[in-house]
């Protein structure tokens, strides 16, 4: 980026352009040279780079599809384990069998009463 690296330009802005790959080859060479000679500048660049990574990680992790964020659906409850589902099915079968047996028994008794 030819606008940067001119006399009077804030050095931090130049460092930003270097970090964001927005500077020209000449400015990049000057920045490389300055970074090797100035440990404080190199430290600042490292801090900025680290903060950039933290920023990206923080917000990339929380990005959700639109529907998931605005959904009015009630939350889904905890999933049942396979054992719990099987027990519930067994109870339903037993209840149905008992109801059937009682109905058949009742019908048998009523039929006998009518016959007698």
């Amino acid at each position, binding site marked *: 980026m030819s606008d940067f690296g001119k006399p009077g330009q804030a050095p931090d*802005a130049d460092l*930003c352009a270097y970090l964001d790959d927005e500077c020209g080859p000449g400015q990049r060479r000057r920045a490389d040279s300055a970074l090797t000679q100035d440990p404080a500048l190199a430290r600042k660049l490292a801090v900025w780079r680290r*903060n950039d990574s933290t*920023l990206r990680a923080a917000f990339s992790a929380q990005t959700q599809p639109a529907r998931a*964020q605005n959904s009015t659906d009630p939350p889904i409850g905890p999933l049942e384990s396979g054992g719990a589902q099987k027990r519930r099915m067994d109870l339903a079968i037993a209840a149905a069998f008992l109801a059937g047996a009682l109905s058949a028994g009742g019908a048998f008794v009523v039929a006998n009463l009518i016959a007698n």
Partner: protein
Amino acid sequence: MAARISSDTFDDQLEPGLRRFAQAVGFDAGQVACAVEGGLHRARSLQGAGAITREEGRPVAYGVIARAFLVHAAALHAAARRQTPASCKSARLAAVTVDQPPSSEVERLRIGLTSLPPLERAVLLLVVLEGLSYSQASSALGIGRVECAQLLAAARSGLALRLEPARARPPDSGRPQLRLVT
């Protein structure tokens, strides 16, 4: 002749980033939805009228959200200046609560972002989080490229001031040092 792209593709590609940006500047869920729709609508209508490319539409859509955020921040600032002494007290209390030591680096980062001036926050998020070039971010915000770099530098320095002291502290500072007694 600029290549045209279909609206669906355009929306699908842009929407996740627009949503992330709107959340990161500090909009709540309702504001995020409105801002994203506004950005997409503006980019779509320009595309329909004058055939813009994806790269031209991107800063347009981000610009709508960024400007909405700047207007919103200015309105909040003006309201804060007009507030009564009683609400000043509650604002101070809220600030104290936020300023308590945050539990994680991400939380410190959020607080650091909130402490930045709105324009610096917008530039930082457009370039670092959304990957816009200086030209695109400048176009989105209606500023020059040099100003964009200066704002970025100020934002990065401000964020570093917020984050670095906490990093420099050892995790067990303030606790008594244990040593092995033989």
